[in-house]
């Protein structure tokens, strides 16, 4: 049915221009055949009458103005979907690479997805216990939330994400179906292997769908990877009723790919060369987390991004933080002190926490304890800098107590073993141990009733 066009009119990085096409649609997928041997895919990103500007997903190497046949597919990018996706591995644009053959799909869906109607969303309220005190007590993960990890190169974000996957109570206990969708964008081979090993060792590999675009895979393909992964996640969650945890790593590589394509399109850059639509683009992915009212499944997202130069004001973490429902921030100083996980609790935040904790979900004192830990820990730095000026001995008794509170917080509360799985009650009791280091009158965030119940003056 479709016409094949021979030749191209220009090639510039990942972009090619084809003139004289008929009936080309915006956002349509095209197939290239280079010298009749190599197959490539591309997407129409601009169209003017009979001229189409096409972004090629793979490398444009070998393509010449003469040797390429182009065919319009008549539809936008679609992903074949089947329940058997769990346990399978795909490349960055959704083609199987595990040698188990093509997927016997039951439906195909546009990878761009449609926005979820706010009136049909259900506000997420279910607490997910990760077994990590810093997260459970202070930046609680909620089912259906999007909670990114802001990290830096060389920090243990992969270990942390893997520990969350191993320990997170995604639905095993009450026998609900769960699954993990793992999307790698531009990560190293050993990182992908690390995650695969972790999934295998914890016996969940049959529940994992992997989409891999590794560091040496084509850059433009990376722009598709999170979208196919989320399309799969939505299918598994809303059509099959599973609780899906999506891990997207590394969002920084994705954004860099976006910048590369944008600059080859000669678009006007905004901050640090990133295109002006970076916010909308990121939002179109992050917003695909959630729960649909009246449906059993959920999509929870943990995107991982490495902050360039550990700078939280860099556009990538900055825009991400404006879209996601909080963030878990890793810190190099803590990592230097051998604290694992090196979570800097002060800039970390979970916006959905308030709805998923308290008497009904965790314990009555959870919110107050969390507020108090934040407030007290924020004073530790003041005490530390004062100590470095006038010396520790000169500090007032209260300031000394703050110093020791800070040490204890970092070493025994935030810090824990890589296989240590604390229940929320253990975590909250431990938090009270921390607060007992301070004099009672310093605990002004906790109301008197709770203090009377949990604070023992004589300890």
């Amino acid at each position: 049915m479709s016409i094949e066009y021979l030749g191209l009119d220009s090639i510039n990085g990942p972009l090619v221009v084809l003139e004289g096409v008929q009936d080309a649609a915006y956002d349509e997928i095209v197939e290239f055949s280079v010298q009749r041997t190599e197959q490539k895919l591309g997407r129409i990103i601009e169209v003017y009458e009979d001229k189409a500007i096409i972004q090629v997903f793979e490398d444009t190497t070998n393509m010449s103005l003469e040797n390429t046949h182009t065919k319009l597919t008549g539809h936008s990018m679609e992903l074949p979907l089947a329940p058997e996706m769990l346990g399978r591995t795909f490349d960055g644009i959704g083609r199987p690479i595990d040698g188990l053959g093509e997927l016997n799909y039951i439906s195909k869906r546009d990878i761009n997805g449609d926005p979820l109607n706010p009136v049909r969303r259900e506000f997420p309220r279910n607490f997910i216990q990760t077994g990590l005190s810093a997260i459970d007590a202070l930046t609680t993960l909620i089912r259906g939330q999007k909670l990114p990890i802001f990290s830096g190169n060389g920090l243990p974000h992969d270990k942390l994400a893997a520990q969350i996957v191993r320990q997170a109570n995604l639905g095993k206990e009450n026998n609900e179906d769960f699954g993990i969708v793992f999307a790698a964008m531009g990560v190293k081979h050993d990182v992908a292997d690390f995650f695969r090993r972790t999934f295998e060792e914890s016996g969940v590999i049959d529940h994992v769908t992997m989409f891999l675009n590794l560091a040496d895979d084509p850059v433009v393909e990376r722009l598709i990877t999170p979208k196919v992964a989320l399309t799969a996640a939505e299918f598994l969650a809303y059509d099959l009723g599973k609780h899906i945890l999506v891990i997207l790593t590394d969002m920084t590589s994705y954004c860099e790919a976006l910048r590369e394509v944008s600059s080859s399109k000669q678009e006007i850059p905004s901050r640090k060369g990133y295109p002006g639509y970076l916010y909308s683009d990121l939002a179109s992915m992050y917003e695909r987390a959630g729960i649909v009212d009246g449906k059993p499944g959920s999509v929870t997202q943990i995107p991982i991004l490495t902050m360039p130069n550990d700078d939280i004001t860099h556009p990538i973490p900055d825009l991400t933080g404006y879209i996601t429902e909080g963030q878990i921030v890793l810190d190099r100083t803590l990592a230097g002190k051998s604290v694992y996980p090196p979570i800097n609790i002060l800039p970390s935040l979970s916006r959905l926490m308030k709805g998923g904790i308290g008497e009904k979900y965790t314990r009555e004192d959870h919110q107050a304890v969390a507020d108090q830990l934040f407030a007290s820990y924020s004073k530790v730095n003041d005490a530390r800098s004062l100590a470095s000026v006038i010396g520790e001995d000169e500090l007032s008794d209260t300031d000394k107590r703050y110093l020791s509170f800070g040490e204890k917080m970092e070493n025994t509360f935030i810090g824990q073993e890589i296989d240590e799985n604390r229940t929320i009650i253990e975590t909250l009791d431990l938090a009270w141990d921390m607060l007992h280091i301070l004099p009672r009158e310093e605990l002004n965030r906790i109301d008197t009733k709770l203090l009377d119940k949990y604070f023992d003056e004589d300890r």
Partner: protein
Amino acid sequence: MKQLGTIYGINGPIVYVKGRTLFQMSEKVFVGKEKLIGEVISLDNDRTTIQVYEETSGMKPGEPVYSTGSPVSVMLGPGILNNIFDGIERPLKKIAEISGEYIHRGADVKLLDTEKKWPVHVMVEVGQEVIGGTIIAEVPETKTILHKSMIPPNIEGRVVEVVEDGEYNITEPIVKVKQLDESIVEIKLAQEWPIRNPRPTRSRFESSIPLVTGQRVVDSLFPIAKGGTAAIPGGFGTGKTMMQHQIAKYSDADIIIYIGCGERGNEMTEVLEDFSELIDPKSGNSLMERTSLIANTSNMPVAAREASIYTGTTLAEYYRDMGYDVAIMADSTSRWAEALRELSGRLEEMPAEEGFPAYLASRIATFYERAGLMQNFNDTEGSVSIIGAVSPQGGDFSEPVTQNTKRFVRCFWGLDKALAHERHYPAVNWLDSYSEYVGDLAAWYRDNVSPDFVDNRRQIVEILHQESSLMDVVKLIGSDVLPDDQKLTIEIGRVIRLGFLQQNAFHPEDTSVPLLKQEKMMEIILYLRKRCKSLISHGMPMSLLKREDIFTKIIAIKYDVPNDKLEMFDQYKKDIDKFYTKIMDKNA
């Protein structure tokens, strides 16, 4: 609707029509086979540029573009309140009925319910002279709000026909008016109005009444007037949205228009769930009965995001024309500015600062200038207050959106990352923030709250400033070396910060506080300071004073004194006196 052109090029939400066309500037058009809604944004001899309010993928050159002959407009009439719309006023509940949990493009829905019959009480009679703005009928739109249908602006004449009181839908004529040129127009419950044009009023005047929000740091320190403008800038996680929610819930405006512009879907769901359950203390009904939500979440089309701000403002002006006090929460105006930037980039316009178009400042100005306390043509007074959140890149207030916003708002509530980190909420930085309304509102506070209010406020602000400069010293050398009177300033500063400025949105008493309690709290803190000062002048050291629990007690007033038991403050005064005599007796 007739076809005036065919698509020539498509670039994201921007569509081009080739050649010289008959389209008008800002005209609403239908684009392509699916008839997606668009707006003409530029015209020249070679091509017409259209921005499309929906996703354009799959659209092809050669598809038709239809003209409607009128600018992009909203429908104004009963049914706006207790409802949620997208950026161009399409009802999201209706869209959900048609297309399920996802919003598919091209959904063909009526902006307001045309089927529903409203009980109508007609307010005009045959022979009466009417002008634009004259109230022709009253409709109980929700349990809380009486909707007043008006003659649209620009119509003037004599009533020649009215219907009986009864049940009518918004498409049935209620009144027929013979205009000055003898032509007859039918006036219905609903009317259309272009979103980019402010609705006319007779005159604008200075407001001297505050918009009371129940938030101490706002009402007492940095108040906003009814008809005023305020900006809430803050990096992510500093509590912009939370603050907007609190004001939307507890402010004494009659009507709230909440615009979720490029923000999270879950936040809109939360507002919808919360506001439906929460009871408006003024009316006893649910808060949604006085609220309308405009939701263009961050994953919805960007052109509609640009429009959502205007849509919300137009709805607000319509209720203002009825004589109501309306407050707009715009969360976040930065997303709107970024939508402008994105569209400008696609149009290949010359960028100014950080890629934003050069007209950014003038667009921000026109938006905030639509706020104000007005006298309407029907002699009522109404106001539109605008409270806009700003999300500065990197939390840096020197970026263009924050700076340009600062030029056009009179109230600036700067949120601070360090305060948010220690969970001091609302994280309004008392050193950076300001309100230009303090002087305008002084008389009102004096007459309606207390003659001392303004002076107490000044003293509290002064103590906070002194405390802040003392803290700089303390950070270097510790607090032990300070003289006792300065230690007292630090201690009172702490009491103000913890006991007055910090406000717990999740505490039933503390979430919203009446002005009188705010005043009493300031009074009691200042009284404590006065007594302590006197003790110190009698040579009592601060360490002795701090051994008493009076400071902790005063901090806990916000929780311990219920909002309707203000007589309890007398006891606190006695406690302070007791504390004074105790120390004096023991140590004299």
